[in-house]
């Protein structure tokens, strides 16, 4: 069944993927803002008017251009922005530690330390790109700011042990590998639309599921769970990502 679905999905993916006539997001953007040269613009107008694929891309581009956090997104966007901006500012201006020792200070998280340079460079580059785009909106000469490509590092991950995938019976507990920096763990079990069913805190690398929650784990119904490791100050230091499981029908 899963294999048949995968074949079907791959067939559909192929049929719905952009054709050779479809425009790239950059071309669509230029087309939408009216800056594409006339013959190319006319050609693209003819194509887009009959191409649901390009129309979909244009809709997404418009949504991106107008993307502003809604009331339920504001807190998360603020949190992410503050986290990234702090790194940017921190990396851009020498800290007192750097001034004294001439090198980067030891960090609590390897992720934080290693990303400072990369993020600052990326941020500086983007600012430069914006400046170039404003000074000369077409075909500017661009300086190569960095020959060395920075590495993207992900936040520390918790490896989960169980449950995962299709199960024969409702799980009695959630288990994961302990994190050295963790003073406690926040655990959450959710519906597939991320609505929380149950949440709890623990100091151990496992937690027993209460009977009331187990009663809601019925055959065929997928659920998600995740665990966040917190340090003594309550800051998140590692995260499992959402894990999916369900009992076979």
């Amino acid at each position: 069944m899963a294999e048949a679905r995968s074949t079907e999905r791959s067939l559909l993916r192929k049929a719905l993927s952009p054709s050779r006539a479809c425009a790239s997001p950059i071309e669509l953007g230029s087309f939408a803002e009216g800056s594409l040269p006339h013959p190319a613009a006319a050609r693209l107008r003819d194509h887009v008017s009959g191409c649901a694929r390009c129309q979909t891309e244009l809709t997404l581009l418009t949504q991106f251009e107008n993307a502003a956090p809604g009331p339920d997104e504001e807190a998360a966007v603020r949190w992410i922005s503050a986290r990234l901006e702090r790194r940017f500012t921190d990396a851009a201006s020498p800290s007192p530690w750097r001034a004294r020792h001439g090198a980067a200070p030891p960090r609590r998280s390897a992720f934080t330390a290693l990303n400072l340079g990369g993020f600052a460079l990326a941020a500086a580059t983007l600012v430069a790109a914006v400046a170039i785009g404003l000074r000369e909106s077409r075909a500017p000469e661009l300086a190569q700011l960095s020959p060395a490509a920075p590495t993207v590092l992900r936040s520390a991950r918790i490896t989960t042990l169980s449950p995962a995938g299709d199960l024969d019976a409702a799980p009695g507990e959630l288990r994961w590998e302990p994190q050295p920096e963790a003073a406690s763990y926040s655990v959450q079990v959710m519906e597939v639309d991320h609505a929380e069913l149950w949440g709890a805190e623990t100091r151990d690398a496992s937690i027993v599921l209460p009977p009331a929650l187990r009663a809601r784990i019925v055959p065929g119904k997928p659920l998600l769970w995740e665990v966040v490791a917190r340090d003594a100050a309550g800051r998140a230091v590692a995260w499992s990502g959402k894990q999916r499981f369900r009992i076979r029908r």
Partner: protein
Amino acid sequence: MSNHLAAGGGGASIWLQELFRRHYKKVVTWCLRVAGDREEAHDLAQAVFVKAQRHLGAFRGDSKVSTWLYSITRSECLNYLKSRSSLNDALEDDVAEALPDDPESRPERVFELHSSVQAARALLDRELTDVEKRVFILHYGDDVPLLTITRLLGLQNPSGAKAYLVSARRKLARALRRWRASERLTA
């Protein structure tokens, strides 16, 4: 404004930082809508900016900076969704349950039965509303989960993209039945 920027004064720098933050908010909001989770959205947004730095040499000024940034964001988000594809079929099960158990109504039949991809796409174009087309293409063409499509397209109805996908599949099943009937008549 251009002169001010070219002069490279402190005011220009502040103005540029402000502009950067405006673009940056778009990226962060978009990544949040794709990931549906702030930790993952943070990593995703960071990856977008790092990639923007890495590909700066490819920016030729043929488009607005925000369009260029969108193309990078789009690519990173699709890669992210591919890496998470095992988590994405839960709502698809719900869609299947909302439809009659008829193999002939499966959406891929549209492409199996029509002589060319163009003919099948024309059928989609004719039968579906604009929103149904967007949802259908993003879900089946790019493997974007229905919850993510709901957030990206800003759909406000209670069941979001799922309702549009169920409706699209019903319409296509009806169109296929009509198409088969007309084939029988002409045979």
